[in-house]
């Protein structure tokens, strides 16, 4: 163990902002999943709750991803270059998904004629919400499996496709989808006062919780051969047992809270569970950023840059966190009539 320095602190901030993106941005994607899967007599009302929950906050939630990207290229530029090169294809497809999701959501909200065009935007928004998390998960899976290696002479497929088109990476994609859908359903139980709708989302949350369980099991199974590094980290290190225990406890508490309709508790537990899964991956890789060769130490920018970024983060945080709190304060206190569309 070496001494923690500036690079480690910035890596931790990077991980935190990805963590925030997974929690908030992830829940927004999950909302789109439930839009796609909306069924039953309350279908349109479910969609309305989802749209109202997303409207004012999705752009802000989305900036966590941008923050992570910017931190990556400022503080760990070789990592950014490597990911952009080897994962060109999944990242490009993910971008198409991000573009389609954001614009289709807004078009749908503002093209309020209830006609075929509006439905089409709805479908675009919803399908992009399914595809994008899978691609995000696939990219993370590719990194975890240690296949995002330096460019070498070799065929196109070997260099630019095989690193990410693996059963393991795909299973991480599935896990990401399940996690986001789970988060969204749990959060949505608190977005409406209508007991029927609340019940709808509760059932979906329980279902998604089970899906998360199976997807995690699949990832763990495949990691045996595909991602030995993460596997070892997750199994053998000193923090492994406490982490697994904590994850397990939050999963059980989350499901139980859903079962007994303690939705606020469920929200906390679900957020915790997802974050712990995320940190499990991050810690298992530490101090590698992109296995097998790019570490925090050998990719970090000079300290002059890192110090400034840290100062910038502190100042930015001082503006940002109160603003974010205000945003959630204004919009996440459920109005009495929620369940019907606003103006």
């Amino acid at each position: 163990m070496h001494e923690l320095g500036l690079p480690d602190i910035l890596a931790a901030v990077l991980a935190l902002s990805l963590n925030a993106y997974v929690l908030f941005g992830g829940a927004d994607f999950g909302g789109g999943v439930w839009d796609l899967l909306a069924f039953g007599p309350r279908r349109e009302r479910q969609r309305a709750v989802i749209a109202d929950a997303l409207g004012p906050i999705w752009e802000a939630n989305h900036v966590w991803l941008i923050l992570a990207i910017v931190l990556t290229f400022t503080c760990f530029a070789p990592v950014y270059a490597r990911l952009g090169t080897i994962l060109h294809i999944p990242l490009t497809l993910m971008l198409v998904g991000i573009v389609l999701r954001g614009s289709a959501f807004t078009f749908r909200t503002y093209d309020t004629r209830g006609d075929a065009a509006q439905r089409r935007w709805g479908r675009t928004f919803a399908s992009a919400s399914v595809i994008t998390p899978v691609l995000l998960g696939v990219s993370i899976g590719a990194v975890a499996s240690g296949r995002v290696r330096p460019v070498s002479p070799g065929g196109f497929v070997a260099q630019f496709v095989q690193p990410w088109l693996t059963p393991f990476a795909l299973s991480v994609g599935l896990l990401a989808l399940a996690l986001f859908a789970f988060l969204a359903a749990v959060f949505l139980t608190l977005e409406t006062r209508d007991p029927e709708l609340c019940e709808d989302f509760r059932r979906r949350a329980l279902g998604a919780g089970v899906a998360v369980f199976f997807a995690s099991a699949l990832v763990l199974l495949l990691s045996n051969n595909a991602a030995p590094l993460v596997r070892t980290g997750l199994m053998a290190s000193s923090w492994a047992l406490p982490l697994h225990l904590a994850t397990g406890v939050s999963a059980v508490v989350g499901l139980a809270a859903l079962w007994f309709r303690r939705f606020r508790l469920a929200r906390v537990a679900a957020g915790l569970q997802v974050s712990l899964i995320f940190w499990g991956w991050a810690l298992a890789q530490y101090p590698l950023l992109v296995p097998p060769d790019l570490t925090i130490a050998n990719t970090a920018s000079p300290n002059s840059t890192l110090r400034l970024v840290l100062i910038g983060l502190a100042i930015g945080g001082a503006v940002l966190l109160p603003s974010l709190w205000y945003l959630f304060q204004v919009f996440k206190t459920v109005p009495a009539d929620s369940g019907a569309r606003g103006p």
Partner: protein
Amino acid sequence: MSDLLAARSQMAVSLAFHIIFAVVGIGMPVLMVVAERRWRKTGDTIYLDLAKRWSKGTTILFAVGAVSGTVLSFELGLLWPQFMEFAGPIIGMPFSLEGFAFFTEAIFLGIYLYGWDRISPRSHLWAGVAVAVSGTASGIFVVAANAWMNSPAGFDLVGGRPVNVNPVAAMLNSAAFQQTLHMTLAAFAATGFAVAGIHAFLLLFDPENAFHRRALSVALIVGAPAAVLQPISGDISARQVARQQPVKLAAMEAHFKTASGAPLTIGGWPDSKAGETHYAIKIPYGLSLLAFHDPKAEVKGLNEFPREDWPNIPIVHAAFQIMVALGTYLALVSLWAGWVAFKGRDVVANRRLLQAIALGAPMGFIAIEAGWTVTEVGRQPWIIHGVLRTADAVTPMPGLIVPFLLFTLLYCFLGVIVAWLLYRQIIRSPGSTEWTRVYVPTVTRRA
């Protein structure tokens, strides 16, 4: 199409697309805040309607701005990994600050757009101010990063690698002030004139309409002063280019041979092979005067530089001419409108002026695209002027024509949809009650 050309084209398309929405994101909040403040001061509800209608259209544009900006922040790595590996530690700083500016903007935008009924009018106005300030700040930060590509600073080059990195010096590079000033003014001028132009056009058919009258006045108050200042700021930019990037200046002016007391070349078709410009109007001493404020000054011509360091001369020259022509037009129209208003006459009663404003609607945006073409194409073949060549920065990934076509198609599609939605929702909407309420001329109609 070579991979390098495909990458450059994809970058160009993405930036040209994003800049439209980014500019709206800088300009519209100011317009909305001015309108809302007038409502608060005068109690005239038409101003409130104005702010609300504008904010509706702006929501659509903002969303497209956010997603296209996200694409850009990935594209820097997808297309130019070597560039970012070099530049990230040096100019990542303004990008990080920009990240915070985006965050603040997105937060208060959510509050502004969706919070009409949820917070007090006073807080609402301040949320608008926060959006305007952070939008402007994000533009400034990202343009400072671009200025660094034109005028690199804040590091020493040792064996091809940057050492002694000083991000503050990089951010405060010698082109940063000129470019950020020019771009910020451009955003206000372009948005102001686009909005003023649309309402001026509608006023041509309905001169008494109180809604359009107020819209026109708010838009001109924001757009006209910026448009008047723009040629001055452009002159400051040009002199900085003359010092820092003489090749670019020579390309802008299609100035092939070094000369003292160089003439200003207007129009014409530069022939790079023959090294001369045909059919141009030449104003004696003009170029020396503009570039160095001295009629005798020597201006380096393209002949001083090896061919492989030339950018594409016809494109840079034409783009520069377009920007300057449009900028001159907008400045003159602004002065005209200012004069009419200063004399206490009704701007709307002057049909010729209204027509001139309406004609100016797209011009700011065209000037912006042209100006960026000058800056970016004029920097070629360098991605970082004098330090790193574009050809050495491109990704090794083959088949780049595929993502280029993919994003071009996607953006064409989005562009059409946005235009159609704005038309359908905001400009036409004949049946909606909201429109009727605004449209019926009220007692506040001016005589």
